[in-house]
C-alpha cells in the first residue's frame, strides 16, 4: 500500500481523510483546503470583517486539528463538525463584543460592497447594503441559515445536519426567514422615509 499523492488525496471522501488525518497531517491539509473558504465565508458574514474572520477561521482549524483524534462521526459529518465549531466560536465572539462594543459591523460590509463590487451602480449597492443590514438584524439562527444557503451554497440536507434539524424543518425555517426579512426591509424603508420627512416638516415650520 502506497501513500497517496496530493491528487489522490483530493479524491478521497471526508471520512477516509479524517481517519488518515489522525496520524498523517498531510490528510488534514487536504481537509483544510477543502473547507477553509466555506468556513471563512461563514465567519466573515457572521462577523462582518476580515480581521476577525481570519482570526476565528484559524481558531476553528487549530481546534479541529487538536481534537481530530477524538472526533467520531456518529451522524455528524466532518463538514458539519467544522461548522459547529465555527458557530460556537462566533457565538463567543458576539458575546465578547456585546460586552465591549467597539465598531459597528455593517461599516465593514458597506466598505466591502464599495471595494469589491465597483461595477454595480450606487443605487444597487445601497439596496444590497440595506439587504445585508436587514439580514444582520434577523435572529442568529435565521442569519446562519441564509449564509449557509446563499454564501456557502449548501443543500437543505447539509444545513439540517449542521443546525441539527430535519430537511423539512429547514425548508420551513427558510420560508419564515424570507417573511421576516421582507418585514424587516419594510420597517427599514418606513424608518428611512420618516427620517427623510423630518427635515421637510421642520422647514415648513
Amino acid at each position, binding site marked *: *500500500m*502506497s*501513500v497517496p499523492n496530493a491528487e489522490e488525496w483530493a479524491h478521497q471522501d471526508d471520512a477516509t481523510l479524517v481517519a488518515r488525518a489522525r*496520524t*498523517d*497531517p*498531510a490528510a*488534514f*491539509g487536504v481537509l*483544510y*483546503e477543502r473547507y*477553509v*473558504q466555506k468556513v*471563512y*465565508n461563514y465567519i*466573515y*458574514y457572521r462577523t462582518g470583517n*476580515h480581521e476577525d*474572520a*481570519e482570526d476565528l*477561521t*484559524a481558531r476553528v*482549524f*487549530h481546534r479541529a*486539528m487538536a481534537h481530530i483524534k477524538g472526533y467520531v462521526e456518529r451522524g455528524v459529518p466532518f463538514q458539519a463538525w467544522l461548522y459547529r465549531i465555527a458557530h460556537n466560536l462566533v457565538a463567543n465572539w458576539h458575546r465578547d463584543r456585546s460586552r465591549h462594543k467597539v465598531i459597528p459591523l455593517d461599516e465593514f460590509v458597506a466598505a*466591502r460592497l464599495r471595494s*469589491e*463590487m465597483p461595477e454595480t451602480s450606487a443605487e444597487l449597492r445601497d*439596496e*444590497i447594503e440595506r*439587504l*445585508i443590514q436587514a*439580514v444582520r438584524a434577523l435572529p442568529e*439562527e*435565521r442569519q446562519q441559515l*441564509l*449564509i449557509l*444557503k*446563499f*454564501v*456557502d*451554497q449548501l*443543500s*437543505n440536507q447539509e444545513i439540517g445536519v449542521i443546525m441539527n*434539524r430535519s430537511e*423539512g*424543518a*429547514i*425548508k*420551513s*425555517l*427558510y*420560508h*419564515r426567514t*424570507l*417573511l421576516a*426579512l*421582507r418585514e424587516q*426591509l419594510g420597517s427599514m424603508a418606513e424608518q428611512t422615509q420618516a427620517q427623510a420627512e423630518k427635515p421637510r416638516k421642520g422647514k415648513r415650520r
Partner: protein
Amino acid sequence: MRPFSDDELPEAPNSALEDWLAAHADALIRGVPFALPAEGLSEAERAEAHSLMLLASRLREGLRPVTPDAAFVARLRAELLAQAPARPALLIGWQRLPKRYKLVARIGGLTLTAGLALLAGRHVLELLLRAQRRERGKDPDLSLTAAG
C-alpha cells in the same frame, strides 16, 4: 417536553409553498432557470411566492461568497502542518506496510512474545523448585544429621 418555538414547529403550515421556495433557492444557487410548475399553489400563494422569490434573488445577489486572502490561507496551512506532532519513523513505516505483511508481523510478534514468556516461566519455576529443595534440606525431621 419543552414547547416548540416558532422556528421548530414540527408541521409545516404550508409545505407546498415551502417546497416551491426551497426548489427555487436551489435553482438560484446552481444558476439554472427555475421551472417548477406551481400546480399545488393557490392564486394568493403564487403571488406570495413571487414576492418571496424576488427577495431570494436579491439575497443571491447580495450574499456573494468572498475569497480569503491567499497569504492567510497559505500561512494557516503551514502553521497547522507544523503544529502536527511528528510521528516516529517506525510508526510511519508500519502504517505503510501492506495488510498481509502486518498480519505476518503480528503472528511473528505473538510467537516471539509467547516464547519469551515460556522461557521466563521456566526460569521462575526452576528458581521456585530450587528454593523449595533448600527449604526441605533445612527441615530437622528430614535431616540425616538430626539426633535420633
